[in-house]
């Protein structure tokens, strides 16, 4: 089987799982969204108090544990870290601000397009622009420097945290906060969501699925298999939505979306740029975090913190549109990301290359 065919199947599988999760109770066009689900989980443990967005999403736990098990099974679990962790925290934080301006991560952007939401097409244009911007910095020498081997225990901690969250959800739900209305209250059963997460996490690890890599690799290397996964995800998602009567083409009346084109463009532009600078989209960061990469764990923590502050400071968008605080927060986050890109591209000292002795 060719690599492109494999990635077409991977994209199609993820879309089918996402459509199934919506049928089982997840919000419309939100069968899977790493940004939204991390935000809901942050709310459920009390990091923010947005009443409509609080639930420990088993999909997040599943992706972490699925990637963890797959990496162990493939003998590729590798505890690594130490590549500019604080910078990665800020990039993860900023990426989440962009995602919550748009209302979704790249995965949900694709699912929104598959549902006929043309606002997400505007987001895709911004996302591509952001990825191209990041690729420019990569080609000019951007680096956060190398990772190092760390204690194997360090790599096990996020899966352990995921198991603790799962235990709380199953055995002690009263200590968590759950939405009683809005998107946070809409979810598939715990078991279905967990199994879906496990499968998507494992498949994501084995295939190295990344929604940024699709565009980046086609630009940098002229390689298209990852882009094929992205395309298959949209195509299969669209077929599913058409089959189940949930395809609604247009800008208005789209579920958990707003129609402000400029901010849809800018929000996803920031996600695209941050993702390239981090080396992967939010989904890829979560998968890497489950497979021992502590730099990605720090990034995920940054994303969760960004989600919490986005809601605590009223920076997250809603169906009513983008808030003033959101625009200010975006400006600060974008300035931080661009500064990081510029400094780590043009501000570093080169030691020079030499033949090893």
């Amino acid at each position, binding site marked *: 089987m060719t690599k492109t065919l494999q990635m077409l199947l991977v994209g199609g599988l993820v879309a089918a799982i996402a459509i199934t999760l919506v049928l089982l109770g997840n919000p419309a066009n939100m069968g899977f969204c790493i940004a939204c689900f991390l935000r809901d989980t942050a709310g459920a443990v009390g990091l923010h108090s947005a009443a409509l967005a609080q639930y420990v999403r088993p999909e997040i736990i599943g992706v972490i544990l699925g990637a963890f098990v797959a990496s162990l099974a493939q003998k590729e679990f590798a505890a690594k870290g130490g590549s500019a962790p604080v910078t990665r925290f800020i990039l993860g934080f900023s990426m989440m601000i962009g995602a919550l301006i748009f209302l979704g991560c790249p995965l949900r952007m694709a699912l929104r397009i598959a549902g006929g939401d043309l606002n997400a097409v505007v987001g895709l244009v911004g996302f591509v622009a952001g990825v191209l911007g990041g690729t420019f910095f*990569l080609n000019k020498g951007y680096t956060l420097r*190398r990772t190092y081997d760390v204690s194997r225990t360090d790599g096990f901690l996020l899966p352990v945290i995921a198991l603790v969250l799962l235990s709380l959800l199953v055995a002690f739900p009263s200590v968590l906060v759950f939405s009683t209305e809005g998107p946070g209250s809409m979810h598939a059963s715990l078991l279905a969501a967990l199994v879906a997460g496990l499968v998507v996490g494992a498949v994501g690890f084995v295939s190295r699925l990344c929604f940024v*890599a699709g565009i980046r690799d086609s630009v940098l290397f002229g390689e298209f298999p990852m882009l094929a996964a992205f395309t298959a995800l949209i195509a299969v998602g669209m077929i599913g939505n058409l089959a189940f009567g949930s395809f609604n083409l247009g800008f208005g009346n789209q579920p958990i979306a707003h129609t402000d084109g400029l901010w849809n463009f800018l929000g996803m532009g920031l996600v695209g740029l941050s993702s390239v600078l981090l080396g*992967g989209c939010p989904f890829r960061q979560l998968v890497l975090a489950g497979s021992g990469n502590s730099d990605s764990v720090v990034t995920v923590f940054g994303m969760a913190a960004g989600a919490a502050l986005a809601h605590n400071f009223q920076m997250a968008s809603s169906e009513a549109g983008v808030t003033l605080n959101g625009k200010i927060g975006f400006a600060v986050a974008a300035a931080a990301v661009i500064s990081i890109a510029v400094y780590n591209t043009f501000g570093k000292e080169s030691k020079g*290359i*030499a033949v090893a002795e």
Partner: protein
Amino acid sequence: MSSYVATFHSHFGALSYWKALKGQGVSATLKPVPRKVSSSCGTCVLYQHSSAVDLDGCELDSIYLEVDDAFECVLQK
């Protein structure tokens, strides 16, 4: 001449190594890392040479010899 795949700790390292090889007249290509190879960074350098080229200063991780679509690690930094 043999085919080699060099992996790196960062994209910048791969880019630096690729430029250094090109400077030496070696035919080299930047590519995504093949799935059969593990790496911190998703970018590798494929090149044809009589032996593995070990360079310092470019965050080199490993070099693999490619034989019949299989990869044998011949250098690990």
